[in-house]
């Protein structure tokens, strides 16, 4: 370990292997580093476990070296080098994943894709954009906006994630009900497989299984994306937004399902459970104090006290009025267009006894939505953990799934949820679990290293208990265990329940595309 730094704890030092690899990679004219700060930054993602490592100031999974290739050819050269030496190669984009997918659990080379930013080529007439895998999501959105175009992809990680990260995890964003997930936007891909072959999938008609669709979501275990051709659309001029309150979750679910089944295509269709509705601030009821601490992460001592009794907290939520907020949005060329679809959707909501709250609460909701992930930092610092699942199922099973996860985790964490990524056949449920992790960041900073490690062990244990209970309940209900976050390391233990005999197909794919077993080992496949 190297010198001490205030926030990070001791930084990792360069290993002999790392220094040797750096020289070999530099000989390929690829920028590489063994600097402590680079190794530290490449040792984590945005998963709750990684945030707990940060709080405890430990670095359990440092890579040996970080490399920044700038082209598909350089990526291929790096893959061949790793293959010859049997060194793990972990591709990393923005590092915003929440499942440990980009953590170098076996060390080796972290391949940072952020320099894979070939000049954007926009084919406005054809509705396409060619983009490098390292391109930042927000940057892409801004460049398309200048041409009055949009990809229609707006995940919470937009400001920090890369296009390659979206492809690797089959990302889905806020607008997925209208535009689909990123898998629906891909026309062609360039990627490097584990043998160092550059693959260029074809745009347009092709024979056999769709290679691009097969590689999407492989989380860097089959191939490393270097470039993509994506479908883009005219950027709409107008938005229509409404908040609608329902007396029960069931009525709200029925309304959203009927809106989708009617053929209408809202760009936003988000349904909040009663607690999430309460936090959304549209309810006349004020948020009771113990829950307010949880929303704000303030008053660390009081927050930890409240989290010692998650069952009581969840029962308090059960005792609250069970209203559910739905936010609906439509976009189009003119105000009349958006209002026409919006009013049609409202008429369906009224049949399910929905109360139109107007546009203001929905606009407030939209303005605050992208801040939500960053609000988790105060909670972690205060001594809590926040885990987020994104499970998915058909409409018929959505409410039983939600209730099953609540029951399974009620004694372990406070549960709040919203239903998103609505499709005519079903939806995703994004469930947040807020539980007790241990000491606050300030206490850890003032304590001993042994205390910090003991606290971390307990925190990871608490997190794991709540997480596993939730995923087990979801798997029991027949849901898919990840709608858009991927498997990474966090969901591996439940993958066999999702795929069953499909695990054999997964292993065969790994052998086919990564014959040396070097690409992101320890991820997806256990």
């Amino acid at each position, binding site marked *: 370990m190297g010198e001490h730094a205030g926030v990070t704890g001791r930084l990792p030092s360069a290993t002999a292997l790392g220094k040797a690899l750096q020289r070999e990679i530099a000989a390929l004219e690829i920028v590489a580093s063994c600097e402590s700060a680079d190794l530290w930054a490449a040792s984590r993602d945005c998963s709750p476990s990684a945030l707990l490592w940060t709080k405890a100031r430990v670095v359990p999974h440092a890579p040996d070296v970080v490399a920044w290739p700038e082209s598909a050819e350089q990526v291929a050269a790096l893959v061949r080098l790793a293959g010859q030496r049997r060194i793990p190669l972990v591709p990393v984009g923005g590092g915003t994943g929440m499942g440990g997918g980009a953590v170098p659990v076996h060390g080796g080379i972290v391949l940072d894709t952020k320099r894979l930013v070939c000049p954007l080529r926009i084919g406005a007439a054809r509705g396409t954009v060619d983009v490098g895998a390292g391109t930042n999501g927000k940057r892409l959105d801004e460049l398309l906006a200048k041409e009055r175009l949009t990809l229609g992809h707006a995940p919470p990680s937009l400001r920090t994630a890369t296009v390659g990260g979206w492809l690797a*995890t*089959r990302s*889905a964003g806020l607008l997925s009900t209208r535009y689909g*997930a990123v898998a*629906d936007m891909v026309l062609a891909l360039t990627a490097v497989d584990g*043998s160092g072959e*550059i*693959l260029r999938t*074809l*745009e347009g*008609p092709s*024979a*056999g*299984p*769709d*290679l691009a669709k*097969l*590689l*999407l*979501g*492989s989380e860097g*275990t089959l191939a490393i994306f270097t470039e993509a051709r994506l479908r883009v*659309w*005219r950027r709409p001029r107008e938005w229509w937004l409404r908040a609608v309150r329902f007396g029960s979750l069931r009525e709200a679910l029925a309304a959203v*399902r009927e809106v989708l*089944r*009617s*053929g*209408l*295509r809202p760009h936003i269709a988000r349904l909040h459970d009663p607690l999430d509705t309460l936090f959304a601030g549209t309810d006349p009821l004020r948020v009771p104090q113990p829950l307010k601490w949880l929303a704000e992460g303030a008053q660390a001592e009081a927050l930890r006290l409240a989290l010692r009794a998650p069952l009581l907290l969840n029962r308090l939520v059960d005792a609250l009025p069970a209203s559910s907020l739905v936010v609906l949005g439509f976009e189009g060329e003119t105000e009349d*267009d958006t209002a*026409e679809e919006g009013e*049609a959707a409202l008429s369906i909501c009224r049949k399910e006894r929905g109360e139109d709250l107007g546009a203001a609460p929905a606009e407030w909701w939209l303005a605050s939505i992208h801040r939500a992930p960053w609000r988790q930092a105060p909670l972690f610092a205060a001594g809590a953990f926040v885990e987020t699942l994104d499970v*998915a*199922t*058909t*409409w*018929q099973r959505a409410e039983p799934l939600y209730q099953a996860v609540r029951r399974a985790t009620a004694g372990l964490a406070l549960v709040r949820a919203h239903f998103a*990524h609505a*499709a*005519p*056949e*079903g939806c*995703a449920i994004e469930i947040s679990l807020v539980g007790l992790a241990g000491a606050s960041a300030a206490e850890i900073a003032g304590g001993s290293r042994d205390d910090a490690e003991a606290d971390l062990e307990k925190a990871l244990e608490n997190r794991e208990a709540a997480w596993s209970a939730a995923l087990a309940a979801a798997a029991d209900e027949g*849901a*898919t265990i*990840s*709608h*858009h976050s991927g*498997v990474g390391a966090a969901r591996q233990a439940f*993958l066999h329940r999702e*795929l069953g*005999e*499909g695990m*054999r*197909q997964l*292993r065969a794919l790994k*052998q*086919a595309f990564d014959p040396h077993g070097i690409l992101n080992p320890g991820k*997806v496949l256990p």
Partner: protein
Amino acid sequence: MIARDDLAAVGVSVVEEGDGLRLTPPSAAALARAVAVVRAYRLPLHVRGSGDAPANAPPGGVLFDLGSLDRIASVDAAAGIARVEAGCSVEALESAVRRSGCTLGPLLPSVRAGSVGAWLAGPTRGERGVPGARRQTAALTVSAVLPDGRIAEGRASPSKAVGPDLDQLALGGGGRLCIVAAAWIRLFPATLAMPSAWRFPDVAAAIGALERLCEHRLAPARARIRAGPDGATLGMVWEGILSASIERDRAARVLRESCTPAPEVPPNFVREPPDGHPVEVDARWSSLRAWSAHGDLILFGLHGGGAFAVLSLPEAAAAEQCAALARAASARVIAPRRLRDAGPGWEAAGAGPAWDRLVHALGVPP
């Protein structure tokens, strides 16, 4: 023949056919057991009702006829999902879901005439148009029999991110890497189609108008372009309980800038069968424009990049002539089967070695 006895023992009907055997499994489980036997004997294997395979048993091998796997296990009209076995004909499924107020939507004639398994494993990969000028496979997920006789069952979910999408090994795979035994199919609500017809100077202009509608995300569910002495007629229909009339009216606003309505065109114009001996293609818009000088088109699954199309010549020309012109326009012919183009596969993408390794790793019989 030892294999024959072993195959009969796992509960499949066995009939000699030419130099090979035709097997008819009564269930997915029997199919899986029989696949394991076939693999143990390393027999060549074809599948009828699962895409690209020829209709006869290969010499010294077996043909799986999935015709008995034709059960429709459930139809959930509220969620728009049906569970169906692969041998069920698409027509039979459409009839069944219609009784529940649903539909599979407009489909190519060759798809409609085949089985669900053939649809999913065949060249269209089960894709069809969905609102918003996108194409999407009809399968929420599939049950697939692997080469070792095990059954991989996917979870029905509108979308998922649990590693690579394993359904993609079955969709469009022609039964090579696995055999589709059953599937969860997405259904649309059955509604009245909203028709609209327009006149253009020529077929190319009509194709350009459809491409423009796709840019505005107003693609019709089905369209037909017919050349006449005074130009071309474009007929379209939109489907969707509330969306059909909205989209038709918006499309009219877009089209009014460059063409004129044709109110005299009968509503069933779009549904009339094509002339002569048509071929079906998967084509990009540029290919369809290149074809436009030759004949008429009926289009399905319209999206930003192109469409499935039924191409026909004005006179009763042979399908071979039609296919040759389609190929010259860089369209991929997908029906009739005898004229089907192999199309560029994984080799063209540089993934030939990966394909070979995959076939080996899965234990696919020769």
